[in-house]
């Protein structure tokens, strides 16, 4: 394919994806939504079946990497103007971003190093509860908490990792699940976390006297107050994705991949196995704790359901579905699995049932996920 052709392919496919997203978000009728989902499934199926299509697309996007990224960012930043009428849609976008951040975090353990752990809920709860407690007792604001509470969650994660990394596979899953359940039981029982009632009154953020409860007015259009949070979380999501990509491309990411392939061979090469694992857990906990902090300040309430073990299971499902160690695939599946149940409110009760079925079918027929990781390429050639 020549250059102009590639440019055409890239532009059309990106615009098509954006139009699809907008249409999906703005449609209300279940029938139309179902048609759109079927279209999406067909598109994905075609992408997976036709090697030429996939190759052409990936080549086009590799060549126009920067343009596609800029276009995507511009599109995402303009989303509130499309959704201005409905705060709920912006809320869904914020939740998708939180899940994307958590999934990127989990990917360091599950995707890069094959450590399936179910402690995500504990990390999330740690971030949410510590920021709530900090702001209630020490009156620290959002901007302090976002670093302090994430750091606390990171320390918690690193300490947790020390016993956890002594175990593997099933035992690792069991021990992390035990930790998750202990954490849940703990915040449900002790007094200072408010027990089953949770903690309310987590303050909303403020910045140089700017009121986050008031929606911004842009070009005479009054946007809902969620827009403020939306822009903050978009900035953080972009920063975190760039950071995650850097880490994955660094020697740390390579070491984690090496550990995944063969742990004994790794240590025989004289590479420390324990430090990268602890690092992965700490990074995972920091990112998940960050999501928890943001969530606490956004909802202004934290409760035991925020540390429910099902969060961990859903996150594992997201990473497996997206394709292990493939950031864009994971981001896609995180957004998909957050948006789908919100759009199909009629099937809300069946959310987990559908997740479980999708994952089981996926593992039976396509165990590498929607978008499997490509091989590492260090030099173009």
């Amino acid at each position, binding site marked *: 394919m020549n250059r102009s052709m590639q440019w055409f392919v890239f532009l059309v496919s990106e615009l098509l994806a954006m139009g699809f997203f907008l249409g999906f978000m703005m449609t209300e009728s279940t029938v139309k939504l179902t048609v759109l989902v079927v279209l999406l499934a067909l598109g994905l199926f075609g992408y997976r079946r036709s090697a030429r299509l996939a190759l052409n697309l990936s080549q086009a996007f590799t060549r126009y990497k920067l343009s596609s990224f800029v276009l995507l960012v511009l599109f995402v930043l303009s989303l509130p103007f499309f959704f201005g009428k409905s705060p709920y849609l912006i809320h869904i976008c914020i939740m998708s971003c939180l899940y994307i951040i958590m999934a990127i975090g989990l990917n360091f353990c599950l995707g890069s190093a094959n450590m*399936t752990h179910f402690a995500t809920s504990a990390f999330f709860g740690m971030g949410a509860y510590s920021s709530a407690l900090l702001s209630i007792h020490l009156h620290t604001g959002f901007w302090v908490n976002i670093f302090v509470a994430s750091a606390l969650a990171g320390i918690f994660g690193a300490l947790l990792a020390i016993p956890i990394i002594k*175990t593997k596979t099933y*035992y690792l899953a069991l021990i992390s*699940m*035990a930790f998750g359940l202990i954490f849940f039981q703990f915040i449900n029982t002790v007094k200072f976390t408010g027990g089953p009632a949770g903690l309310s009154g987590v303050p909303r953020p403020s910045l140089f006297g700017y009121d986050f409860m008031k929606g911004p007015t842009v070009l005479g259009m009054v946007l809902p107050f969620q827009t403020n949070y939306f822009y903050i979380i978009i900035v953080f999501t972009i920063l975190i994705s760039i950071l995650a990509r850097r880490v994955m491309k660094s020697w740390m990411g390579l070491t984690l991949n090496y550990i995944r392939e063969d742990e004994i061979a790794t240590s025989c090469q004289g590479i420390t196995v324990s430090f990268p694992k602890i690092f992965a857990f700490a990074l995972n906990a920091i990112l998940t704790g960050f999501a928890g902090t943001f969530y606490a300040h956004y909802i202004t309430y934290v409760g035991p359901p925020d540390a429910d073990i099902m969060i961990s299971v859903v996150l594992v499902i997201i990473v497996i579905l997206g394709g292990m160690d493939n950031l864009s695939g994971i981001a896609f599946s995180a957004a998909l699995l957050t948006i789908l149940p919100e759009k199909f409110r009629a099937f809300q009760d069946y959310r987990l049932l559908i997740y*479980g*079925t999708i*994952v089981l079918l996926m593992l039976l027929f396509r165990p590498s996920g929607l978008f499997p990781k490509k091989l590492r390429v260090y030099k173009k050639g």
Partner: protein
Amino acid sequence: METLINQLVNAFILSCTYALIAVGFSLFFGAFNVINFAHGDVCIAGIFLSLILYGLLKYLGIFGAFEGGLNLATAIFGVLATGFLGVLIERGVIRPFRKADILIVLVATTALGIIIRESIKNFYPAGGLPHIFPKMLPDGAIDLDIVLLPYESIIIFFGSLVLITLVFLFINYTRFGLAIRATSQDREAAMMVGMSPNQTGAIVFFLGSALGAIAGIINALYFGATRFDLGLLFGIKGFSVSVIGGLGNVYGAVIGGLLFGFMETFVIAFVPEGTAWKEFVAFFIVIIFLIFRPSGILGEKVFEKV
């Protein structure tokens, strides 16, 4: 004295429940090297399967003079149906992944557990609410001067004792038990001498799931009620018990069950506000075991080979 004996009875019944679930885990692990994370939910499925038959019989108005006996029949139906559910699970979810990565099996069985749990919640009438489990065993109690022992507890206790003994006899003295033991020692060698891994798998999963269903029904009988989401805790505790006892070792499962059951009852009885903390202590013990003795009480130390 009276509370002490009551607590002892409680502890024994709890231990039996845990041991029965853990035996399932050990059987699966021994035969296939898999941990079935859906096992807890399978146990709960047993309870609800027998509740379905119970509701059906009640709807048809078959109950009359022998209500207790028929209730017992529904329980037996639930156990057998769960056994067949186990066979189906082995065929549909475990067998396709026999050569797959451990991670895949782990996630697949977790997903299966979610599917079973959510199916009960969504498709059983009012599945999200706690359900009363009908009485099956005769009322009344033996008066031992110092303490009143209900028949129910006695029957449950001796019933599970007999059951566990039968499992031991089955594994140690029958041809099928021999196949299970051989497969767990070396699957390929067992295949070479003509033991079909598929047949062994079906037997193991039937046995394990049926035992799990019995454990679930004992639990439901004892507490008089059940809920759809008990499965998660059942599964994790059963797995913990078999890890503590030594994974793959059926005797270890019983020892671990006793340890777990007694410890939990002890915490409930003697620690203030113990009910809230029992899970805490239980999982703490598991974590300690996993860190310092991951092979469990009776397990052999496994060295990793390249």
